[in-house]
């Protein structure tokens, strides 16, 4: 039975089901609670009859969610396409079943050659859209590329598409077939390198399909997707398939803006097969439903499970078993699983996938089930035949590998294991048998959830905790949804069952609810700069690194604001023109005034930066007590003496309430900081800008200009209380006034209430005002000298420099004569305005330039490293080393340094391969491998180079992102390259699993090829020869056995 046929059947079955669903639905709450209102619309729009008048659509209530942005539009899939046949008379590809609305909508847009983003639930039928795009390109005699994040996925798609389309090619790191085909399947990394080197494949490219585009979130590889999306030529149509993500529209908008072409978003509203989530506490008690089909959390179910577990525990304690144990003994585990599997079988819940989030536990669980047998006799014989046929390409000793034998035994009983430690070929056998329904119970890690359509009836979670490299944590909603989504086969199961096993304890309710119903993670940019990107872009004129950075999803906001900045810049420039034409005539004092401005601006800048620090000196803190006289300058209150009333804290900053004198009754308004000023400014911003907006800076400068003059009121009695910050305090006067400051504040505050406005000030208050007035008058007439509290003696050295500078500037300002010019204020106003505009222009120019990009500093740093290491010259032209580095797929700097420092050239091929494994292998090992002298020396040399590179990076302030060198597999690879059989090298490692070794050697081969090309580039044929030999030596047997998906004599499983 061909798999694709089966899939089509499933699609067809599901189609009928949805139709029923749609008509049956009467405002039922959908699974996804965030889309509740849309579902309600469905119910309204879709009438019971089959004929749908088009006009009725307009009556539907508008969707509450935003559905349109500048470059993205969400298509409303709640209204069906009625004239699909008319719009697409001859489809490029037809299916045996009726298409769903979302598929039709997407296909319509594909026909229009538009970009499409399909965000649909697992197994909703996204593949249909991808297939249609490929079919279209075939009809147009152009090319299409299908990219997927994982090599295994590419292989599976290759088999599927080859059956559908015939002319299909596959390009992965270590396997190429039919590279000139019209439809090419490749990993995203391959597509990126094709774009960088401008491969002719791109030339007639019409459609690119990105499967699982939410991989953009991957911290390791996500940036590759972004690079590819930026680099793709504009005429290419982009088809993106993704799981449901909250910010689909934002992401689509970015893609649209980057490509200058609208992106249409199609998303499904619910899963085709709804899910039921259960808790399992033990065989006697059974399952507790905690989340039902519509996505509602059932608390009663949870509570029940919780109590049951508690009583169980108590009982156990009674029987004397230790309480509160976090782990069960393997024997206990085995019992739990055996009983549980039997129960599942009885309840007809198989096939099931049991997600066990560690490789070790996967193996152990599978091994524990020695007594379980889930297959019938005929199934057994088929599995036997299929297994033997699949491994017939292996060598005799490889077929006897412990893992192969063990897995065969498990598979015969209907149990499978799938994780990265399993040999790739065995993984494929497991996948194929699983798809045929012959694996009834599969123990798998998270990687299995990334695969193509491989659903089961039931998904089990052995645990909901995961070790993510640094920490054990609960699964994220996105991860949980991805895995749980494997439950429920379309057309076969009515609902999918998800069961969480609570072996020791029931997880917290909040924890569960959050994990099950929480929002999946938003797509976030993982864009980053790599040396290879910089070098690749430096060598061609196509796009600059700055351009690349500014087009990234990370800087999207920056990009979208460019237009606004441009407009602002335009107005600023216009205004400047206006002013300069007006002021040119009276330019007599222009120069001296603008000099004054520059000095004052610098002074104030320094002042405000360090004033806070200065006033935090213990000496000043001691002096700053209520009653202290201060010289302040705050807004229009310039150079006034005041009495400190109280100290407050506003937004972590110290603030001071100060009593000052004033002239006008009008200024007696409450002045709590900037609040009033701001609210006015924001309400009629346009107006105040038109006239002249008083700027705090303006007053500060006026204050500086009239430094020696202290404000003296014209009349007695006018006063107000200000709230000032540290940089408003010019100095602290030695004198102190003894009044009850609290009383003054209370009195003044009372009079701010309109009822008491006309009351005369209280006695304490008027006394204080009196004192202040007297002092002010005495000081200004010179009868009393104004003395300030001197600076503390033990000022920090760092601050001392600043102080020195401030003093210098102050001296200069004092020497400045410009404020003696008659009409100073008016003339200076012009200068001030002009200077402010200039400032703004500079600011805007900066914001517009790439310098304001968040990654720009890092870019400069990386360029410095490359220059210093000789990869590029000072004009950023790529040099020989840079060209060598461009050949590298990864670790570009390390490998280039290794090659050019002659670490590899004097070694034997096997040694070269072994040494390069340092860069590829990642797992930690418990035991130290045994190495020969040359290898030890080589490892030392590599470590030295790594240290040098790291030093260089640190010198320029780059945090080293390199993986630690790992010599754990050097010995293994060396022996493998020497020709030892796989079973023997497996004995060298007890803690590294077969699959990991195979993958490492496969990756190593890619690196070897890169180095081979590099050797050719630098003109060393001997090294090239060696690399070829090394590659040939490791490319053999089980490590490089052809994938079952890609081999021509594909032994398709069928009963």
């Amino acid at each position: 039975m061909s798999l694709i046929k089966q899939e089509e059947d499933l699609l067809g079955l599901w189609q009928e089901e949805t139709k029923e669903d749609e008509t049956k639905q009467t405002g039922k709450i959908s699974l996804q609670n965030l889309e509740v209102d849309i579902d309600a619309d469905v119910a309204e729009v879709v009438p019971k009859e089959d004929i749908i008048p088009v006009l009725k659509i307009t009556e539907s209530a508008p969707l509450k969610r935003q559905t349109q942005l500048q470059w993205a539009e969400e298509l409303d899939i709640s209204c069906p396409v009625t004239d699909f046949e008319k719009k697409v008379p001859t489809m490029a590809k037809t299916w045996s079943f009726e298409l769903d609305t979302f598929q039709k909508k997407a296909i319509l847009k594909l026909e229009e050659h538009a970009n499409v983003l399909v965000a649909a639930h697992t197994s909703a039928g996204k593949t249909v859209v991808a297939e249609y795009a490929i079919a279209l390109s075939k009809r147009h005699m152009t090319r299409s590329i299908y990219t997927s994040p994982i090599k295994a996925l590419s292989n599976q798609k290759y088999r599927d598409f080859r059956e559908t389309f015939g002319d299909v090619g596959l390009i992965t790191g270590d396997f190429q077939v039919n590279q000139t085909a019209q439809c090419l399947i490749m990993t995203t990394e391959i597509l990126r390198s094709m774009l960088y080197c401008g491969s002719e494949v791109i030339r007639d490219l019409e459609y690119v399909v990105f499967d699982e585009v939410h991989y953009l979130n991957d911290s390791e590889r996500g940036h590759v997707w972004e690079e590819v999306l930026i680099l793709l030529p504009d005429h290419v149509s982009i088809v993106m398939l993704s799981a449901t993500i909250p910010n689909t529209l934002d992401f689509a908008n970015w893609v649209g803006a980057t490509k200058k072409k609208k992106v249409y978003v199609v998303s499904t509203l619910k899963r085709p097969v709804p899910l039921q989530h259960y808790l399992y506490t033990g065989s006697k008690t059974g399952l507790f439903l905690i989340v039902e089909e519509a996505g509602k959390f059932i608390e009663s179910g949870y509570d029940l499970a919780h109590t049951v577990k508690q009583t169980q525990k108590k009982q156990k304690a009674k029987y004397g078993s230790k309480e509160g144990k976090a782990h069960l003994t393997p024997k206990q585990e085995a019992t739990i699983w055996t009983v549980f599997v039997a129960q599942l079988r009885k309840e007809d819940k198989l096939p099931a996938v049991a997600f066990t989030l560690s490789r070790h536990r996967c193996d152990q669980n599978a091994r524990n089930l020695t007594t379980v047998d889930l297959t019938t006799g005929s199934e057994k014989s088929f599995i036997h035949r299929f297994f033997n046929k699949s491994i017939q390409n292996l060598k005799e000793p490889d077929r006897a590998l412990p893992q192969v034998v063990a897995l065969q035994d498990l598979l015969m009983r209907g149990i499978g294991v799938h994780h990265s430690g399993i040999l790739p070929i065995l993984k494929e056998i497991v996948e194929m048998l699983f798809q045929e329904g012959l694996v009834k119970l599969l123990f798998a890690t998270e990687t299995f959830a990334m695969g193509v359509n491989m659903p089961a009836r039931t998904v089990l979670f052995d645990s909901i905790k995961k070790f993510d490299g640094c920490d054990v944590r609960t699964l994220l909603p996105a991860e949980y949804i991805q895995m749980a989504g494997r439950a429920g086969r379309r057309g076969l199961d009515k609902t999918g069952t998800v069961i969480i096993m609570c072996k020791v304890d029931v997880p917290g309710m909040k924890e569960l609810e959050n994990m099950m119903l929480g929002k999946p993670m938003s797509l976030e940019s993982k864009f980053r700069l790599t040396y290879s990107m910089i070098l690749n872009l430096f060598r061609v004129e196509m796009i600059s690194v700055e351009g690349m950075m500014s087009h990234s999803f990370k800087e999207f906001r920056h990009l979208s604001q460019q237009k606004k900045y441009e407009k602002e810049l335009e107005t600023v420039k216009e205004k400047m023109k206006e002013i300069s034409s007006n002021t040119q005539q009276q330019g007599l004092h222009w120069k001296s005034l603008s000099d004054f401005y520059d000095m004052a601006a610098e002074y104030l800048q320094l002042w405000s930066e360090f004033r806070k620090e200065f006033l935090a000196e213990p000496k000043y803190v001691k002096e700053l007590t209520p009653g202290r006289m201060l010289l302040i300058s705050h807004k229009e209150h310039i150079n006034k003496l005041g009495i400190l009333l109280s100290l407050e804290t506003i937004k972590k900053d110290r603030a001071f309430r100060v009593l000052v004198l004033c002239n006008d009754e009008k200024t007696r308004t409450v002045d709590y900081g900037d609040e009033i000023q701001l609210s006015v400014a924001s309400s009629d911003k346009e107006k105040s800008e038109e006239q002249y907006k008083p700027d705090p800076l303006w007053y500060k400068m006026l204050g500086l200009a009239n430094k020696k003059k202290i404000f003296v009121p014209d009349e007695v009695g006018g006063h107000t209380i200000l709230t000032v910050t540290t940089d408003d305090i010019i100095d602290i006067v030695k004198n102190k006034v003894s009044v009850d400051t609290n009383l003054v504040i209370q009195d003044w505050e009372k009079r701010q209430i309109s009822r008491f406005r006309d009351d005369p000030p209280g006695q304490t208050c008027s006394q204080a005002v009196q004192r202040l007035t007297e002092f002010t008058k005495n000081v200004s007439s010179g009868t009393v000298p104004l003395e300030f509290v001197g600076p503390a003696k033990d000022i920090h050295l760092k601050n001392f420099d600043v102080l020195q500078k401030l003093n210098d500037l102050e001296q200069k300002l004092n020497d400045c004569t410009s404020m003696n010019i008659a009409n100073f204020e008016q003339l200076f106003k012009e200068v001030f305005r002009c200077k402010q505009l200039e400032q703004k222009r500079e600011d805007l120019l900066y914001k517009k330039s790439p310098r304001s990009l968040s990654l720009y500093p890092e870019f400069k740093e990386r360029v410095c490293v490359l220059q210093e290491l000789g990869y590029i010259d000072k004009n950023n032209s790529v040099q020989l080393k840079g060209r060598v580095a461009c050949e590298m797929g990864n670790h570009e700097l390390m490998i280039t340094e290794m090659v050019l420092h002659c670490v590899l050239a004097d070694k034997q091929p096997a040694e070269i391969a072994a040494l390069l494994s340092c860069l590829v292998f990642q797992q930690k090992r418990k035991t130290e491998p045994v190495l020969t002298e040359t290898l030890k020396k080589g490892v030392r040399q590599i470590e030295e180079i790594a240290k040098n590179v790291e030093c260089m990076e640190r010198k320029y302030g780059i945090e080293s992102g390199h993986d630690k060198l790992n010599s754990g597999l050097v010995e293994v690879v060396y022996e493998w390259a020497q020709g030892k059989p796989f079973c023997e090298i497996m004995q060298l490692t007890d803690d590294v699993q077969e699959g990991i070794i195979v993958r490492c050697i496969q990756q190593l081969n890619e690196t070897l090829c890169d180095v081979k090309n590099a050797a050719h580039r630098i003109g060393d044929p001997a090294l090239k020869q060696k690399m070829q030999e090394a590659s040939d030596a490791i490319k053999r047997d089980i490590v490089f056995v052809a994938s079952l998906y890609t081999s021509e004599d594909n032994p398709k499983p069928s009963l």
Partner: protein
Amino acid sequence: MTQNVHIRLASQRIDNTIVGTSEVPRLYTPGEIITCRSGFMRGHGTYMEEDALTASVAGVVEQVNKLISVRPIKNRYNGEIGDVVVGRITEVQQKRWKVDTNSRLDSVLLLSSVNLPGGELRRRGTEDEQMMRKYLQEGDLISAEVQKIYDDGSLSLYTRSLKYGKLCQGVLVKVFPSLVKRRKTHFHNLPCGASMILGNNGFIWICPTVSEDEENGLGGFTENLLEVVPRTDREVIARLRNCILALANCKMMLCDTSILYAFEESQKYEVLELLRPEPMLDVCVLTQQRLYMQEDE
């Protein structure tokens, strides 16, 4: 019509070397041993003979870390990925053109790697193959970028964007490839009123400046042989050509700045006079001085 003919004796030829600031580097001759020490890698222009690294060409030794190579004093063009080249079509073959780019082997321009008139997206078909000679035929000049280098050292070219393509009215100047400075951009619209493509392969194309919006519609394949280029433009182009030849004669590096300086310094001469050795040397010395001044700044 009068003609000036300058013929001079060999002894009267002027020395056109401009004394640079740096010392004359040590030149190695083929067969000369560079080093006998081990621990070095052999690069281009070297070979191993009885454990001694030996030069296989005459030139200067260059060392990058442990890699030793000899750069020949005179050689044909060695392409690098990303280089801009100007070349002449020599052959029309199946789905590809052969292009003379001053390298050892003719370069290849695949039909699938050119922009064809009428659309960015090429449909696959036999029609294109039959039309190949219509697009580019033997003797046509093109500008292109090096896309990749085959194992035998020959280059694969492509016209990645619309600024590449067929070259129509203008002047081709050939100089040593090593004299062209590698820069970020090799297309220049000079302020003096002409455009220039400084091919990395030593082929330099000078043509009248085409305004940008006109250029966009072309796709690099339209011919405007009937359009008459005004005399002033032609004079500018001729002067540029002579300046480039003068600079090349004095072994000065060619880039937009040096050419522009030379152009400005040559104003005191007639275009025609620039073909005589003395003005050539004069222009070059003045240009050199200006370049130094600029460097000092």
